[in-house]
C-alpha cells in the first residue's frame, strides 16, 4: 500500500525529474545521456555526404567538460593521444572511437580510422583480460549491479566487438599490412571463442541468481505485458547461430589466406563462413576448392565489400511487470531495450565491374544479429532488472521509514532517472554487409551498381594480386573506397616485379571515384 502511494507521489514530481534528466543528458561524459538522439544528427550528415561535418559534430558531442591539455596522455612516440575511459573518467568512451573510425574510413583516411579503432580495441581488450584472468568475478558482477545497465562502462555489444576486429582486419589489408591483418584475424576468432565462453558462464550465473531470489519472471511474462517479443523472432533471426559470429570475418580470412598461399588457414575460413551462412553460393563454391581459381600475372582477385545502411537503434520501452515487493506482487514499470530499424540497407542484386556482371550476396545482417543478441540476452536482462527493482523498493521503503517523505522522494526520483534501458550502440555500423568477387584484369576498371535511388557509375583502380574495394551505401549515397597500398602476395613467381613491396602513393585513391552527386562543400 505504502509503495503504491509513493509511486503516485513520484508521478506528481515527474516533470522536475525529467528536467533533471535533460540537464544530465546535456553533458557529454554523462553516462545517462541519450546516445540515440545524439547520433541522429551525425547520421543524417553522413546521409547527405557531409562526412567532415559529421566528424565535427561527433567531436562536439564528445567534447570533455574538463579538458586540460597539460596532462594529456602521450603515445609511444610522444604525440598527444586521445584519452580513453581507461586513462581517466573524462576520457572518450568506446562508442566515440567506434563512430570516429567509421567516419574516417568513409573519408578514406584508413590510417586514422585504424588508429581510432585500435583505441576502441584497447577498451575491448581490457574487458577480455578481466574476463580471462578472473572469469568468476566478471560474470559475478552481472547480478550485483544495482544501477541501470546504461551506467555501466560500455564495452560494446558482442557483435560490435567482433565487427570491430573484422573492420580493423579490413583496414590492415587496405593499408597493405599483411602481418597486422594476420594478427587481427587470429584475434577475431579468439574473441568469438571468448564471447562464447562468457555467455555460457553468464547464462548459468543468471539462472542461479534468479533461483536464489525465487524469481520466475520469463520472456513470456514480458510479452503478455506488452513487450514486442515477436520482433525478435523473425526467420532471419532464428537462422543465426548466435548474435556475434560474423560470416564476413571468416570469409575475409579465407580470402586473405588463400591469396597468401596458406591454404590450411583459408579452408577453415570458408568453412566457418558457410556454417554461418549456409545459403551462400559465393562461399560454397570456395569450400573444398581453395587455391583453384588463381589470378593470372596481370590479374587480381577482387573482393567488393559493400556495406549498406546504418545499424539499428536500441531503444527503451517501459513494461509494467508484476514484481514481488514486501510479500506482495505489485505491477512495477520497468524498462527494457527493443531494437528499432532506422536505416535499412539496400543491397543491389548484381554489380558490374570490368564488363562482368557479378552476383552480390549479403553475408552479415547486423539488424538480425542485434535482435538475436537481444533475444539471447533477454532472460538475463529480465533477471537483472527484476532483482534490481526488488532491491530498490527495499531501499525506498527504508528511506521512507527513517527519513520521511523527502528522502523517499529523492530515492524515487533517482529511480526514474536511472531506470532506462541501455540505448548505447555503434550506430554508423552498416545494417548489412554484402560481397561480390571476381578475378579482373589490373588497371582502371568501371564499376556499376544500383543504389536504390538510381544507377551508380564509378571507377576503381586494381593493382597487385589481391584488391579489396570497400563500398558504403547510405540511402542512395555512395562512398567508394580503394586499396591505398598494394602488396604482392606470396606465390607470385615469375612476375617481373622488384622484391620489395610496392607502395603506391597515398593519393592513389582514385579521384574519379567520387560519388555522382558531389558532397556538399562547406
Amino acid at each position: 500500500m505504502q509503495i503504491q502511494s509513493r509511486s503516485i507521489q513520484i508521478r506528481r514530481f515527474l516533470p522536475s525529474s525529467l528536467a533533471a534528466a535533460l540537464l544530465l543528458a546535456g553533458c557529454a561524459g554523462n553516462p545517462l545521456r541519450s546516445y540515440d538522439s545524439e547520433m541522429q544528427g551525425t547520421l543524417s550528415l553522413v546521409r547527405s555526404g557531409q562526412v567532415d561535418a559529421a566528424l565535427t559534430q561527433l567531436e562536439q558531442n564528445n567534447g570533455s567538460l574538463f579538458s586540460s591539455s597539460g596532462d594529456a596522455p602521450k603515445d609511444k612516440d610522444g604525440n598527444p593521444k586521445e584519452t580513453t575511459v581507461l586513462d581517466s573518467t573524462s576520457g572518450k568512451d568506446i562508442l566515440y572511437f567506434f563512430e570516429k573510425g567509421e567516419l574516417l574510413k568513409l573519408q578514406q583516411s584508413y590510417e586514422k580510422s585504424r588508429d581510432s579503432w585500435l583505441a576502441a580495441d584497447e577498451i575491448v581488450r581490457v574487458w577480455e583480460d578481466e574476463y580471462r584472468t578472473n572469469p568468476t568475478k566478471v560474470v559475478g558482477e552481472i547480478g550485483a549491479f544495482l544501477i541501470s545497465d546504461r551506467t555501466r562502462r560500455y564495452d560494446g555489444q558482442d557483435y560490435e566487438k567482433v565487427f570491430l576486429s573484422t573492420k580493423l582486419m579490413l583496414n590492415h589489408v587496405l593499408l597493405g599490412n599483411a602481418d597486422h591483418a594476420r594478427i587481427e584475424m587470429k584475434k577475431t576468432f579468439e574473441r568469438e571463442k571468448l564471447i562464447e565462453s562468457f555467455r555460457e558462464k553468464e547464462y548459468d550465473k543468471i539462472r542461479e541468481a534468479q533461483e536464489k531470489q525465487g524469481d520466475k519472471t520469463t520472456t513470456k511474462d514480458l510479452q503478455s505485458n506488452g513487450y514486442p517479443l515477436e520482433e525478435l523472432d523473425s526467420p532471419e533471426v532464428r537462422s543465426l547461430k548466435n548474435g556475434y559470429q560474423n560470416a564476413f570475418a571468416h570469409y575475409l580470412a579465407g580470402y586473405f589466406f588463400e591469396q597468401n598461399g596458406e591454404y590450411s588457414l583459408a579452408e577453415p575460413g570458408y568453412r566457418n563462413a558457410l556454417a554461418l551462412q549456409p545459403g551462400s553460393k559465393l562461399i560454397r563454391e570456395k569450400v573444398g576448392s581453395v587455391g583453384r581459381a588463381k589470378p593470372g600475372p596481370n590479374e587480381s582477385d577482387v573482393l567488393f565489400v559493400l556495406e549498406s545502411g546504418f545499424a539499428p537503434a536500441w531503444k527503451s520501452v517501459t513494461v509494467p511487470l508484476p514484481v514481488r515487493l514486501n510479500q506482495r506482487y505489485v505491477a512495477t514499470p520497468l524498462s527494457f531495450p527493443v531494437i528499432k530499424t532506422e536505416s535499412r540497407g539496400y543491397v543491389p542484386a548484381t554489380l558490374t565491374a570490368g564488363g562482368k556482371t557479378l552476383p552480390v550476396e549479403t553475408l552479415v545482417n547486423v539488424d538480425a544479429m542485434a535482435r538475436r543478441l537481444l533475444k539471447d540476452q533477454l532472460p538475463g536482462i529480465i533477471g537483472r532488472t527484476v532483482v534490481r527493482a526488488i532491491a530498490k523498493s527495499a531501499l525506498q521503503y527504508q528511506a521512507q521509514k527513517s527519513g520521511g517523505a523527502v528522502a523517499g522522494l529523492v530515492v524515487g526520483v533517482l529511480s526514474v532517472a536511472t531506470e532506462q534501458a541501455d540505448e548505447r550502440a555503434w550506430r554508423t555500423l552498416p545494417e548489412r554487409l554484402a560481397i561480390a568477387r571476381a578475378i579482373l584484369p589490373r588497371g582502371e576498371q568501371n564499376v556499376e551498381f544500383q543504389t536504390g535511388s538510381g544507377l551508380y557509375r564509378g571507377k576503381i583502380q586494381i593493382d597487385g594480386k589481391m584488391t579489396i574495394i570497400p563500398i558504403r551505401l547510405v540511402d542512395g549515397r555512395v562512398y567508394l573506397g580503394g586499396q591505398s597500398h598494394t602488396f604482392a602476395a606470396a606465390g607470385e613467381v615469375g612476375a617481373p616485379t622488384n622484391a620489395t613491396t610496392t607502395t603506391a602513393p597515398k593519393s592513389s585513391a582514385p579521384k574519379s571515384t567520387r560519388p555522382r552527386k558531389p558532397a556538399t562543400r562547406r
Partner: protein
Amino acid sequence: MKHTTIKPLLLSALLALTFSACQTNSPTVGGGGNISYGDAKAVETVTTDLGSTDIQMTSEKMTRSLLQHPLVQNIIRKRELLMASPVQNKTSEYFDTSLITDTVLAQLQKNGVRYVIAGANMQNQVDELRRQNQSGLYRSDKTAKIGRMQGAKYRLDGSVSSITKRNSSTKDVYYKINLQLIEIESGIVEWSDEQEIRKTARR
C-alpha cells in the same frame, strides 16, 4: 613420540634461519604478475582445439613411422630430396598444418634426410635469387646462379579432419591426421600413416 614433534620444529627453525641469512633471488625480472614459464612439453588440456601436445605427439609418431620405413632409410643413403606440400585442413579450426609438416621435416633432417623448401618460403627464395642476379649489386662469381635449384623426388602430403559432437554438457572432438609420402614422378603413395586424437570437454 617426542622426537617426531620436536624434529619438525627444529627443522623449521633451521630453515627460517637459513632463509633469513641468505635471501636468494631468482634470476627473474618483474614478477608479482601472473606470468611464468611453463614446460613446453607438458600435456596441454586447455581446450578441445588442436594444441601443442597434439602437434608434438603427431609429428613424433609420423617421424618415427617414416624412419622405420625402408624407403626413408634408402632416401637417407642416396641423399634424395623431400618436400612438404600444404597439408589440407578439413576442420573448422584455424590450424596451420605446416606446424606438423615443419616438425616432421626438422626431425627427419636430424637423421640425415634432406628436404627442399616449398610453399610460402618459396617467395623469399625467388626474391633472393632475383636480387643477386638482377640487381647488379653483386660480384658475378659470388652470386647464386638461377636455374640450379633442385626438385624433390618425394613429397609429404596429407589432411587433418575432425568430427565434433556436443550436447548441453559435453563436447567431444575426434581428430584424424593423415600423412602420406608420395613419389612425385609416379604419384605412387609409398608410405602413409595416421594419428587419431580424441578430446572431450565437460562444462
